């Protein structure tokens, strides 16, 4: 008795498509990451090695794309989960705000880490 049709015509198609495209990219990123990082437990986790990696321009690029797409994919995913629920507008706006703000904050943190070296 509560159904209301909202004809807002806010297309979700682009974010839906991007979710899949970023997902496909992340497959490669994940595979690459795991091969690089966990091929051997003895290697890869020390300060020097990490800094050395970050000094490599390709690695830097890779890391930047990874956090950008990963954050976008993850947060867009979280937002799509939240939208499954009926939310009052104020709640929706607040949650959306938290997602966007925290996402940007962590993205800046990640970018500044990479650019530090």
């Amino acid at each position, binding site marked *: *008795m*509560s*159904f*209301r*049709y*909202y*004809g*807002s*015509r*806010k*297309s*979700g*198609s*682009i974010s*839906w*498509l991007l979710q899949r495209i970023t997902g496909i990219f992340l497959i490669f990123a994940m595979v690459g990451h795991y091969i690089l990082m966990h091929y051997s437990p003895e290697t890869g986790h020390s300060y020097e090695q990490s800094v050395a990696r970050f000094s490599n321009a390709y690695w830097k690029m890779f890391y930047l794309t990874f956090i950008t797409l990963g954050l976008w994919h993850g947060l867009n995913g979280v937002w*799509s989960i939240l*939208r*499954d*629920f*009926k939310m009052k507008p104020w709640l929706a706006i607040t949650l959306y705000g938290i997602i966007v703000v925290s996402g940007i904050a962590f993205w800046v943190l990640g970018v500044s880490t990479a650019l530090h070296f």
Partner: protein
Amino acid sequence: MKVTFRIFRFNPETDEKPYYKDYEVNADPKDRVVDVLHYIKNEIDGTLTFRRSCLHGICGSDGMRINGKNMLACSILLQDLGYTDRDKTYKKPIVVEPLPGMPIIKDLVTDFTDFWKKYEAVKPYLITKTPPPERERLQSPEDVELIMEASKCILCACCTTSCPSTWSNDNYLGPAALLKAYRFIFDSRDEATDERLDIIDTPDGVWRCHTIFHCVQACPKEINITWHISQLKKKLVEREI
């Protein structure tokens, strides 16, 4: 063969809360669930209330949740519900509940008002702008094949009420309405594609589908609803880029 039916009972007029009542009946493995419900109503307890009509899975009246899953009571035989031939008994009672997440009128009878509103929201009728020809509009067998499966839908609501997205957001149009939208969007005679795409391209529309496949499992007409919804999504994406 003895079998226990554990039936959801609730009359909001008199009952504080819903409860389950057990009925032990003698039944044949080849009986349908609806036969047993009829038997209970006829012989044991006339107050048991449920809808039914055709008794062979074509009118869509008796969708309910049986052993945790939505199905038509008239299209399932007892022997398909965990009956073991070896000891000729049921270990557990057969649980019969109304379609999940719907308002309840009484016992197994639920309120379909929302379901029909969603159905109407997608403009479930052929819209043509060009004047019709003297004879039939031509359509190749392949054109019809595209919409044949979708036109099998009997509007039983088993799918929509099984979809977790409907449980969390009862404004979600749901698989049945989306399937109906497909039925017309992909009808080669229809001339309101854009109009209909606009209707389903909303946060409460097609994008609430997360390919959970509950709908496909529940559909008594074995329609692959998810496939149809994926065609809609692709069409929307194509339109946008």
